[in-house]
């Protein structure tokens, strides 16, 4: 383990982002969390040449303009970004949403708990899982490469 897990969180709601940041700050394992308030800004930041890509992306569904599924489609159409696991982190318990997320190759689907304590447990679980899981970005950061769109 050479570095903290890099997590990108995409959520339109500033309060949600703050709450999530608070939650992540209470975790035992160090996490480098980058929050984006919209899909466009997150995607363009990650697509920038030389940008350090995250180890896991946490993605909300219900967002104005590009919603979570739109963002997911763009990510999975990008040759470099498609390799990054995407976890849907949302308040929607709609079965249609869950089905659509997996159809678009989301790696996991977590319904945000109303209780903060439980929520912290949820993100703790996620971080622990992705710390242990094998991915193309972990434990070594992949070298920056010119990305091509499919």
């Amino acid at each position, binding site marked *: 383990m050479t570095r903290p897990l890099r997590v990108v969180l995409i959520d339109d*709601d500033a*309060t*949600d982002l703050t*709450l999530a940041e*608070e*939650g992540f700050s209470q975790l035992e394992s160090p996490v480098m969390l980058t929050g984006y308030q919209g899909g466009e800004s997150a995607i363009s930041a990650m697509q920038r040449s030389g940008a350090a890509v995250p180890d896991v992306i946490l993605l909300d*569904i*219900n967002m104005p303009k590009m919603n979570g599924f739109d963002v997911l489609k763009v990510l999975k159409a990008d040759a470099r970004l498609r390799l990054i696991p995407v976890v849907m982190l*949302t*308040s*929607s*318990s*709609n079965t249609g949403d869950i089905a659509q997320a997996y159809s678009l190759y989301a790696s996991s689907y977590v319904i*945000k*708990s*109303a*209780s*903060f*304590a439980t*929520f912290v447990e949820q993100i703790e679980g996620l971080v622990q899982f992705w710390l242990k899981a094998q991915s193309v970005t972990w434990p070594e950061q992949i070298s920056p490469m010119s990305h091509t769109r499919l």
Partner: protein
Amino acid sequence: MPSSPASDSEPFSSLAERLQEITEALAATHTERDVIEIVLTPAVQALGAVAGIVLRIDHTDQQMKIAGSQGYEDVTRTIWQEGPIEDHQLIADILHMHQAMYFEHAGALKAAYPELESRTGGRAAIANAALPMFLDGQPLGVIVLDFTEPHYFTAAERRFLTILANQCAVALGRVEALRTLEAQVEERTRQLEEERAALEIFVTFTEAVGSQTDVKVLVRQAMTLLEETCDVEVAHVEREGELFKATEWNPSADAALLPRLQRGFTLQTSGIARLLQQNTAAFIDHWQQTPLLFEESAIFQAVAGYPYFVADELQSVLFMGTRRSATWTERDKRIFRAVCRSLDLALDRARQAQALTAQRDVLDARTRALSLANEELAAFSSSVSHDLRTPVRHMLGFLRLARQSLDGRLDEKSARYLDVVEQSGRQMDTLIDAMLDLAHAVQQPFRPQQVDLNKLLELIRKGLLPDLLTHNVQWEVDSLPSVQGDWDALKQVLIQLTENALKFTRTRDPAIIHIWAEDQGEAWGVFVQDNGLGFDPRYQDRLFNMFQRLHSVQEVPGTGVGLASVRRLILKHGGQVFAEGQLGQGATFGFTLPKTSPKD
């Protein structure tokens, strides 16, 4: 001088030959003209006459009429002129006596019938033979031969002429019979053709009656049928308040009559009105002699009407009138009744079809409204899950963070207040969950199948209620039937009812929960009884309402959505829900399920 028979006439043997030829020729004739020509030509030739004429009696007016002549320069200037038989004394006499008359010398005829020339203005010939023609004892007419010379009629000639007259009569009779027969055949053919046409119209009408639901078209077709089969004028009038006004009429309607029909008239006092009010077809012969419905109808000699009642009130009448006869024939009446009755049935059917269409439209509108409501519900539940949950989550999250940062610095009171905030937040979250469950339950597709309630209940008891089984529960479960229903829906219903029973018996030791079923014939009744808190029967009706609670959250946790979902799910099955209870004495909840699936 009379001509001698030897020089001027042929012997009978030669005459007989001619008769033979005439007989043969007559056999091939079909018209009166041919018969007369065949008879006159040889008669004139054989006897050396100058002219001949045949007069026939018209039996309708007893007039003599010229049927044919030969040899006259101007047939109107003879003494053999058309007119009443009794005016022509000579003809009257020979017909009366059944005997021919022969006048052989100049003046002989004038001597016998002096007034003949002056009356007719013609001149008598020198000699004449006048023979009557009879057929079956009935006088047919006369044959006359005129001679410019005196002529002595030999016995052979007289015999020849007598036979000729008889043959002519027979031939004329035959022609007449033939003509009558032809006319009869023609008439019958025409009648058959008419009946066939009428039948065709009837068939068309009957077919239309079976499929057409446009009242106007049906009335129009019935009217056309009557016009074409009975040669009548027809109008259809409908009630408009106290007046009856024409809605349909035949195109050739009378110029004075039509405006009157359109303006409307009352149907109260006249004879035809009384008959119609009694709901029977009315046929009025000699119309013009009855108190008329209105003056303009006097153009008709006979009028008929057929009443149409809707809900015991005379609603419309189909009238027909004829100008050609003062009486209705049986055929007219039969056709009128048949057509009008068919129309009655068709109108009835059309009204029912219209009512059905209206009902279907209402149902369609309701279905559209329902599906819209469903869509709205789906949108609402999605919105609830996203938009309502988020602030609750934020509230609870930041409350927790606030507690953490205030750690140790909270006084007891503030800590209690924050507890209340947190409890409320959690309750709100529970309510949102319940609402989503309800929306979800209602939107689920209904898939009926055979569901074994024993199996279902066993599954629920074993797997789904461990956290509620913290107290001593005594289960009394009877054998349950296998029912027709949706597995998931019935599972949710039974979970809800058993969970309720467990929740409301938390304070009981032991809690007794009795579950049983009753065969109610058409349906199964399923009951869940507990010995718990019960409820005030005054509020029994509200139990299954959304968010309705009869106990405080502190007393019994819950959202007031569970029984509302139960009701909706059971209604989807075509069943009913019910509850019985007394405060403090337990409750019985139950539902019915039809034995046949509502989709069958």
